[in-house]
C-alpha cells in the first residue's frame, strides 16, 4: 500500500510512541508513587499527619493538573532543553509527559490507597508495625489491584498525550498524523496512524485488565 519509506516511518513512529509512553509512565511512577504515598500518610487522619507537607503537596498537585497539557508542553520548553539538550523529538517529550503525569499518578495512587480497609491498617498497627512496614507490607500489597488498574489507565492517557505532543514536533505516531494528515492531506497515512494508536491502546487496556484480575484474590 505504502512505499518502503512511509512504512519505515510508521514503524519508527510506533517505536517512538511506545518509547515515550513506557518511559513517561515509568518515570511518572518513579515520582508519582512516592508522592501519592506521601499525600496519603500526611493527610489529616493518615499514618503520619502533617498539615504543612500535605498542604504543599496538595497545592503542587492541583496547580500542575490544572494546566492543560499542551500549554505545559510549551511552558516547559526551557526546562526540557536544560534537561535533555533539545526541545523537540520523543526524548524531549518525555520530560513534560512525566511532569504532567506525576501529580495525576499521585492522585490515582492516593485514591487507591484510600480503598484499603482502615481495619487492616489498624490490625497492622496493633501488631507493632512501623509506618514503613505498613506502607510496604500492607498498603501496597492490599491496594495492588487498584494500583495496577490505575497504572493501566494512566498509561492509556499518556499514549494519548504523547500523540498530542505531535502537534509541536514531539515525534511518534501523533507527529506523523499531524504532519501528513493535517498539513499534507494524506488521509490514508492519517487513518493508519489513528488505527495503530487505537490498537496500541486496546492492547494496553486488555493486558492491564487481565493482569489486574490475575492479581486479585478477593473474589474467586
Amino acid at each position, binding site marked *: 500500500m505504502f512505499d518502503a519509506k512511509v512504512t519505515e516511518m510508521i514503524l519508527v513512529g510506533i517505536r517512538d510512541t511506545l518509547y515515550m509512553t513506557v518511559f513517561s509512565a515509568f518515570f511518572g511512577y518513579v515520582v508519582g508513587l512516592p508522592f501519592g504515598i506521601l499525600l496519603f500518610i500526611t493527610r489529616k487522619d493518615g499514618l503520619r499527619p502533617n498539615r504543612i507537607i500535605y498542604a504543599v503537596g496538595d497545592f503542587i498537585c492541583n496547580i500542575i493538573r490544572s494546566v492543560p497539557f499542551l500549554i505545559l508542553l510549551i511552558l516547559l520548553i526551557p526546562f526540557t532543553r536544560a534537561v535533555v539538550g533539545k526541545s523537540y523529538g520523543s526524548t524531549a517529550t518525555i520530560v513534560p509527559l512525566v511532569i504532567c503525569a506525576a501529580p495525576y499518578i499521585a492522585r490515582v495512587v492516593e485514591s487507591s490507597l484510600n480503598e484499603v480497609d482502615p*481495619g*487492616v491498617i489498624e490490625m497492622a498497627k496493633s501488631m*507493632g508495625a512501623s509506618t514503613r512496614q505498613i506502607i510496604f507490607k500492607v498498603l501496597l500489597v492490599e491496594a495492588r489491584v487498584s494500583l495496577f488498574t490505575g497504572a493501566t489507565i494512566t498509561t492509556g492517557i499518556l499514549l494519548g498525550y504523547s500523540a498530542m505532543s505531535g502537534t509541536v514536533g514531539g515525534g511518534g505516531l501523533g507527529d506523523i498524523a499531524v504532519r501528513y494528515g493535517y498539513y499534507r492531506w494524506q488521509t490514508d497515512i492519517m487513518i493508519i496512524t489513528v488505527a495503530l494508536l487505537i490498537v496500541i491502546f486496546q492492547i494496553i487496556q486488555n493486558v492491564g485488565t487481565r493482569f489486574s484480575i490475575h492479581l486479585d*484474590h478477593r473474589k474467586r
Partner: protein
Amino acid sequence: MQEIEIRNLSKQFDVKGHVVDALRGISLSIEKGDIFGIIGMSGAGKSTLVRSINFLEKPTDGQVFVGGVDLASLSGRELRKKRSEIGMIFQSFNLLEQKNVLDNVCFPLELAGIKKKEARKKAKELLETVNIADKEKAYPSQLSGGQKQRVAIARALATNPKILLCDEATSALDPQTTESILRLLKEINEKLDLTIVVITHQMSVVTQICKKVAIIEAGSVVEEGLVEDIFAAPKSDAARELILEKKVRYTPVEALHAHRRIRIVFNENSSEEPVIANLILKYRVPVNILKADTKNVGGKARGEMILGLPEGEKLQEDMIESLRKSGLTVTEVRENV
C-alpha cells in the same frame, strides 16, 4: 500479678470544635490469666478503652500499665515492641485479603523479621491449634466468618503474646459460631495461660467465658465484679438492661406492663426446691412466668426467671420476701426496660 492496670483513664475527642468524652476516669485491674469482660451498649466507649490498652489510642489523662510497664513511658520503637506482645482480634476480622491463610498468620512474624521457613512452621502449628489447618492455601474471601476469626486468632497468637484483646470478636457471627469461637478462646486461655480481654455488647458472651466483668456506660465503669455476682444481682441500670438483653423488651405480653416484674436467679442451693410451686401454694394466687432460662455462667448452671406478680403491694412484698428467704436473688425489672 496485675497483667493490665488502668488508672484513672480519660479520653476526649475533639470533633469539629466540640469535645466528646469517650472515657471518663476509668480504673481497672486485670489479673494474669483472667478472661475479663468489658460490656456496654454501643457508643459506651468500649473500643476506645480496649484501644487504650495497646496505646492505639493515646489517653488524654491517666495511665495504662501492661506487665508493670507504663505505656506512656515507652519510646516509639519500644511501644511497637510492646504491641507485638499484645494480640488483638476484631469484629471485622481484618485479614489481608490479598494473602492466603498461611501468609496471613505469618504476617506478624514477618514484621518481627523472622525467617520465612521458621514463620511458616509456626503458622502451621497455630492453624492446627485453631483447627483450620486444611484451609492454609485458601484466601480470606473463600472463608466463612467463623473460619476468618479462627485465622485471625491464629495470627494474633503468632508472636506468643501474653495478652489477647478481643473487640466484639463474635459480634458478626451467628450464635453457634459464636459459641465455638468462645470455646476456642477459653481453650487457649487455659492452654497458654493467656490473659484475655473480651469487649462485647452481649451479656451471653460474658456469661459464657468471663470470670470478671466491668460494665461501662457513657465512658465510666458503673459496675464491676465477678460475673456470677453481677449476673445474680445486678446493681446498676446498665447491668440490668444488659442482662435482660432484648428478649424481655420484645415480649409481646400485655401482662408485662400490668404487673410488677421481678427477676430471680437460682443457684445450686436453691434449685432443688420447687420454689414457684411453693410460692403459689402459699399465697394462693397465680404467678405469671414471663421468661425462664438456664445459662452457663462461668461453668456453673444458673436458672433465671422473670415473674409477673399479681396486684397488691403488700402481697408483692411478701412474695419477694419469701423468695429471698428460700435463698434466691431477687431484682426488680423496671417498667421501662
